[in-house]
Structures are given as structure tokens and as C-alpha cells.
């Protein structure tokens, strides 16, 4: 027989609320106020003309697509219209608040 679990005590720290998207300006807001803008780790070559084809293709098309924590950009389109970097675990959609910098 497997263990008989006792009562489960969820955190009372408001963890669920932390799963809303934290706009560094406007606060925790519903996902419907935002639009997704892709992988935040993708960096556009500073001087594209100096990038070779491989580097440019890497920027345009290749993605890490990690299964786990994912650094991504969201835009608060129905709010302050700022783009924000969000750390989100794509296996369960949990969001870690980001520094507004």
C-alpha cells in the first residue's frame, strides 16, 4: 500500500496570483491584456551587415525552445505598451516575476 497522505496545505502566500503576468509598471495583470512577442534570448546581431549567413539565419530562425524555464517577451498591449521580459516555465505556465530593468 502506498503511503496515506495527510491533509495537504497549499501555500497561503498568494502563489496563484504570482502566476498572472507581472507588468513591472502596472502590476499583476490578466494575460488577455498582453501579447506574446517570442523568445527573449534571441539577440539581433548588433551590426547585421557584419553577420555571416549562418549567424543571421540563427537569429531569424533557430530557437532553443527549452522544455522548462523560458525567457520570453510579452507586450502589455492593452496597458502601458511596454515590452517585458518574463521568465515562464512552459511545462506548467508558471511565471516568475522579473526585474523591471
Amino acid at each position: 500500500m502506498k503511503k496515506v497522505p495527510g491533509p495537504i496545505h497549499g501555500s497561503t502566500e498568494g502563489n496563484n496570483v504570482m502566476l498572472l503576468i507581472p507588468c513591472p509598471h502596472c502590476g499583476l495583470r490578466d494575460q488577455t491584456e498582453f501579447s506574446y512577442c517570442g523568445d527573449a534570448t534571441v539577440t539581433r546581431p548588433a551590426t547585421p551587415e557584419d553577420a555571416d549567413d549562418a549567424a543571421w539565419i540563427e537569429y531569424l530562425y533557430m530557437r532553443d525552445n527549452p522544455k522548462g524555464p523560458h525567457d520570453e517577451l510579452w507586450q502589455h498591449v492593452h496597458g502601458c505598451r511596454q515590452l517585458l521580459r518574463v521568465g515562464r516555465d512552459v511545462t506548467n505556465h508558471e511565471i516568475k516575476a522579473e526585474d523591471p530593468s
Partner: protein
Amino acid sequence: MSLRLPTGGRIDRNRTLTFRFDGRTYHGYHGDTLASALLANGVKVVGRSFKYHRPRGIFGAGSEDPSALVRLGDGARAEPNTRATQVELYDGLVAYSQNNWPSLKWDISAALGLLSRFLPAGFYYKTFKWPGKFWPYYEHIIRHMAGMGEAPTDRDPDRYEKRHAHCDVLVIGGGATGLSAAKDAAAEGNDVWLVDEGIPEAPANVTVMARTTAFGKYDDGLYGLLQQSSSDQAANAPRQILWLLRAKRVVLASGAIERPLVFANNDRPGIMLTSAALRYLDSFAVRAGRRAVIVTNNDSAYEAARKLIDGGIEVAAIIDQRHMAERHEIAGCEVLNNHAVIDTAGRGGLRHVTIAPLDVNGDAVPQAERRIDCDLLCLSGGFTPSVHLYSQAGGKLAFRDDIQSLVPDTDVPGLEVVGAANGDDIAQASAAIALSHAPGKQFIDLQNDVTAADVALAAREGYRSVEHLKRYTTLGMGTDQGKTANLNGIAVLGRALDKPMADVGVTTYRPPYTPVTIGAFAGRDVGAFLAPTRRTPMQEWHEDNGAVFVPAGMWRRPHYYPSPGESPSDAVSREARMVRQGVGIVDVSTLGRIDLHGPDTAEFLNRVYINGFKTLAIGMCRYGVMLRDDGMIFDDGTVARMDEEHYIMTTTTANAGPVMAHLEHYLQVVWPELDVHLTSITDQWAVTAVAGPRARQLLENLDSDMEFANQALPFMGWRAGQIGGIPAQVYRISFSGELAYEVAVPAGHGQACWEMLLAAGKALDVIPYGTEALTTLRVEKGHFVMGPEADGRASADDIGLSGMLSKRKDFIGRRSLRLPALAPEGRLNLVGLLPVDGKTAIPPGALILDRATAAPEAEKAGHVATAVFSPNLDQPIATAMVINGRGRLGAQLWAHSPLDNRIVPVEVVHPVFIDPKGERLRA
């Protein structure tokens, strides 16, 4: 109402209600459910089963009931597959049984039962394959046999609403455990919500949501709740409300659902869960039968038996499947250990059960079987915690052998599972028994008619994962989502595979917990509210003046303005001709407009467009084209320099939003060092284009302080002033290729300005024109637009804009131009097409081949982008994207439109049909 007790229950005996079921009239009380009222009236059979059309009755008392599905209501308010156990009775209620013809009692399809030995689980995968062309006929029959109720055929007349809400603590389940959790949380000063499918007690300082199901747990602490209206709510009240509740903390006190036991013919009307029989007694003062037998595998049956007896139901026997040293004693009731029910009998209602002792292997001893007369058989197979929402929230389950159930095993932040839902205070139970040699069908899933034999067959054939079992047999896939079936399915599969239940696995719990009305999900996003509609400042004028509209994103733009008796094509031709010959005005307020402020604006524009913007002077405009970084054209428009650090950009109508987001992305993420502020000012301005050789004359007729002569306002210049007392900006830009101006005024003056323009042009025969004439004019002029020509796969060079590509600066997308795929050879070029005979219309959307027949060796040369009739050239013309098109000017090709059997020989020509030197627009 002989089955109704004279007292008791939570019903209002002063309010008698009349209702009809299958055409017969019955009475019940306020506070009844349809199920309790039917039981009180002695109605046992309420429907026919999905596959074998067996008579089915009321089995449960709430959302767990698998079989008491009826159609509620008539006509537009008909509601199929409604669980009678969850319908609050109201006066005038009308309900019908389902899945039978011609009647519930005499159902022809019940004859399928005779064939059932040839229709095991998944039989359709093994047959109906040959001959292939017969499959549609077989399938037609299968489809008509399947389905449950009938969908309504009329528009739903009711209103649904959605509400957003927020709270500190959400308690799901209004039983004793939930109530106490709610009271505690409220005492701590929290904003507490308590939801229950029924009507729970209402503690102080708690928002109580009765008739409400928490059906789903979504991201971000979002819970979906479905609230049913009560039967005596106001007429304009929504039928259902879908609450989108964000809770900081959730207490799941959803209780546990009783399990049936598995034996032959365990589906007859009169067989029900013990908890349901008790519920009918307690809440509705209804005896579910007169003489009951209880069959059990746990101790909860004995307390239940006492309650049934107290309620006036004779309990003939308790059949306990367990092998126990000592027997419980209940006065007036035979108690048998180590016995099982092995069969039941009774058409249209239970008459007796057959029981037998079990041998050491757990098999029945047939020689010792005997009958017990009864009209009610109560099943007491243990309790299954309702862990759906916990599981949806990502909680993992563990199997607990003592109660033969899955219980929460891991922490889910913010979610606490309490009471029976957590497996607490549930009587120990043994597994469900399916007797291997029983003659009749032993049902596991009463709704989908899945039997123990089906489960064994699936296991035998290799469908051994629980997910395979579910999909192969359809176990648990009915509208009850297998609330009473799933655990027994696992038990029987475990037995077939000789595996402990804990190792069999579990299927995923998916939302919704109980079915949720599609209308409730749609809420008020119906009719005109399906999507927003945008209106220009002149919309009312267009409506009042007979415009025919065409959707353009969220806008509805005037397509053309037909004169009385005029055909659409005649109207368009007239409008396009009048613009070239005289003057016309068109509402272009839908174009995106963005204010750009800041010291780095010129530099920013220079990086955004393919052409240079640093030399743009104050008072002038410039046309620009933007690429995506993959080198494809993204948008085009004009930019006007208003001041040292102030510019106004226009975008296409469709791309106004995406362009704004694109600019914001580059400013904030890629070039944060640039100091530029963006504001959408689309809505601030009403813009009218005035085009045609008489455009200047028209403007000069206005009461204005501006000068419009060529020197005062040259091509691509702009000026600010006033028109008739309205502040205005006039831009000399042209989309039609004619002398043209765009007149912009603050939106609140848009209609006034439009009317002034019409008045000023009256003597010049000015006309309003729509987007179709606009298209005709721009095709005549060889202008591309986003969509037909620049379809997201076209480069600047493809469109013939390579001359605009600045060589002196970098810009978005430039690097991609060096990729092999963007080398000019073999790409589609924008060209014009003329029909070789000068008159045959070029089919829109045609493909272009290099020969008249679509032979396999024919080379595909491209496609027609936009085809119009040019009233000014008096012949059909088109733009097209043709492979190496600029090198094929003068060549003959064929436009093929197999959709309408047309093949038109066409000549490839330069795309500018009118005024290639641009003299008209500079005039």
C-alpha cells in the same frame, strides 16, 4: 404520490408544481429536482442507453448520474442530454426521454441487444472496410445510431453572461467540510467565496454561490464557475453566468462520489447508488423504492440501511461482498457476508435480484444462488474522492488501497484539498467485482454501455494502457466523464492484466468537471458583440447615403455608392472614371496614423524604412516601405515631417496595429538608446482623400487660409491651416496617380469637413467613391498593396522597388537580401497583364501557365494578384506576380482559373497602365 413521505425533505409542500414528462402530466413540489419528482411519481424508466438502447433510470442524485439524461424543453429552448438529477423543478417544465423510437417503452433499436454479441467494443474498426465505397452508407447508419439527444434547431433565445471576479479564498463544495473552511477563512478577515452545485447553507460574511459548479482550474489562479439561474429569476436575467474568478487561495472540499458495483444486468431502472437513495429521502422525502436490497463492499452500507429503514423503506437484505469474520446486525434485515449479487430481473423496473455466495476465488457458487424480491437495489461500492480540479491544477494522484481510490499526493501551491476529496473519512472498501462467467452484461460505464467484457477484450487485444482502454471502449467518455465508472474500469482492467490497481494508471482529468453550455462560454460575445466594429468619423454619412460596405479588419468601409438602378460594377466604373476625369473624395480615416516625437526620430525612421528619411524637410512627406527582418515587405505608407522632432507616419489599414507593435519592439528591445515616443493618433483624425484633375479647384473653393497652387503646396508637401473654421492639415499625396490631396481634420469635425468638400465640389460634379474604385485606380497606376501583391512572401525587388533600397544605411530586413533565396533570378515579379483580345476579363485568383493547357509539363509562371475592369482604358487589366516577370514583358502567357473553367491568354506588360511618368499627380 405514494412514494413521497408525508413529512420531511427540503421541499416546499405549499408550492405544487405541474410538469410533463414524455407527454404525461405529473406533480411535484418546489425544491424538487426533476429526478426526485419523477421518482416520487413512480416513474422508473427515463431513457434508453447509448449503444444497446437498454431502459435506464435514475442512478445518482447529482452531477455523477450517468444515465438519467433527458431533453428539457421544446423548440428553441430545447436542451438535450440534461441530467434530470440536476434540473430544479419548475412549474410547466417539459421533458422528454432520449434515444428511443417510437417510444421509450417500445424502442425498436433495443433489438440491437440481440445482436450485441457481434458488437463488442471497437467492432467498427474490424469491419465495414469492404467494399470501400459502401463505407459512407455504413457510416450513415452508425452516425444515426450514435449521438444521444437531439440538438435544437432554432436560435437560442436566452441570454448568457460572463463576470470577472476576485477573492481571497475560494471554497469549492458546500458540505460540512467546505462550510467550516469557509467560516474559518471569513473569520480571519478574508474575502471568501463558497460555491456549490446545490443550495448550501450561507454563513455570514461569505459570498455564497448556489447552483454553481467550479468546472475548471486554469492558469494564473483562474477558476471557471458556471452558475445556473434559479427557476424563479427575473425574465431578463441571464440563463447562466460564467464566472472567471481569480482566487488567491482555494480550498477544495468537493467530497467523494459513491461507486457502483459490477455484476450482470446492474443497469436496470431501480438500481441506484446508496448515497442517491439517501439523498432522495433526506432532501426530497422521496422513497426511491419500497423494498430495497443493498449490495456493498464497505461499512458505509450499514448506516445507510438504518437511514433507509427510518425513512420507511423496507431493506430486505444487505449483501456484503467482503469475507468477514463477523456479521453486522440490523434489525429486520438479512445481512449476508461473502455474497454477491449475480443478476437482476425486471423489465421496466427492478423485480428481484439473484444472489449467491462467493467461493475462495471470489467466484459465485451458482448452486447456492437465490432470489430476493425488491424494487430498489442500492449500490455501495465505496467512495471516489472528487479530485478533478486538483488534478487539473497539476496535482499528482496516488492510489490508496484501503479505499480503492486515487487521492491527492503532492502539494499544489494555493490549493488545499480537504475532507473526503482528500480521501479522509472514507470507509475502507474492497475492489469492484466483475464475475468472469456471468451470463448478462456487467456494466461499468452505464452511459456509454461499456461492460466488463469489453474491458477484458481490450486488454486481450493489447489496449492495455488506461488511455487505450478509454479510447478503445469509450469508457468514461460520456457526459458524466466516468465519475462513477472510471475506478471500476481500472479495477477490472487491473484484474484482466493481473496487475494491482495502483499500477494500472489513470487517465487525465480534463476540464470541464461537468459539461458547460457553449452559450455560457460565448457569453455576450454574440451578435454584434462577436467582435468590435470600428467607425470612421464619416460613417454615419456613408450609411445615410447608400454606401455598400465591405469589411476591412474591424472597420466597415464604403465599397461603392450605387446610384439608383445601377449595378455594382457600373457604380465602381463610374466612380473610377469620375476620379480620373473630374474629382472624387474617399474616406481614408482607417489608415493607421502614428505620432513620433523625440530627438532620434529621423534616425529611427531611417532604420525602419528601406529608403532614407534623414533628408526629409519640415513641411514635406515621403513614401516609405518597411520590411520584416526576413526581407519580406511588411508595410508601406507615408511619413510627414511636422517639426524638428515630430513626424506623423501613416500605415495601411490592416497593419496599423502590427506596425505599432513592430516599432515599439525595435525601440524598446533592439534600440533602447533611441529617444522616440510613439502614440497612435488614428482616432484623432478624420482624413479624406480628394483626387482627380479638379481636386485643386475643389480645395480652392473652400473657405480656407491655405494655398493649394503647385508652388505653394508641391507634390509630397503638406500644409496646416483651417477650412471653414476647422483646423486642418492638407497633404499632397496620391494613391490613385491623380492630382490628389489628403485633408485631415480632428475627428469630431470629420463629417463637417466631408460635407464641406462635397459642397465645394458640387459644381465640379464631385462624387464620393469607395474602396473598389480605389482598387481600380491603384491597379491602373500599378501600385501594389499589402495582401494581393505583397503577400508576406514578396521582397522589395519582387515588387520593383529595388531602386528605393538605400545603399548608404542599414535598415530592418536588409541583411536578408543577401540570402541565396532572395537572389533575383527565379523570383516572382510584379507585372501588369492585359487580355490578348483586349476584352476578356482576367479571372481573379487565376494561376498563370506558359501554355493554354494545364498539361503536366506546363510551367507555372505565377498568379494573378488583382484583376479589375479599367473604365479609363476600357478593358480588363490586372496585376500579377510572375516568375522573372520583368524579363518577360511582351510575352504571352495564359491565366488559368479551373475553378470556373476559364483560360484567358494574357500579355505581360509593365504594371503602370496610366501616366507612367507621373505627370498627372504633379500637375
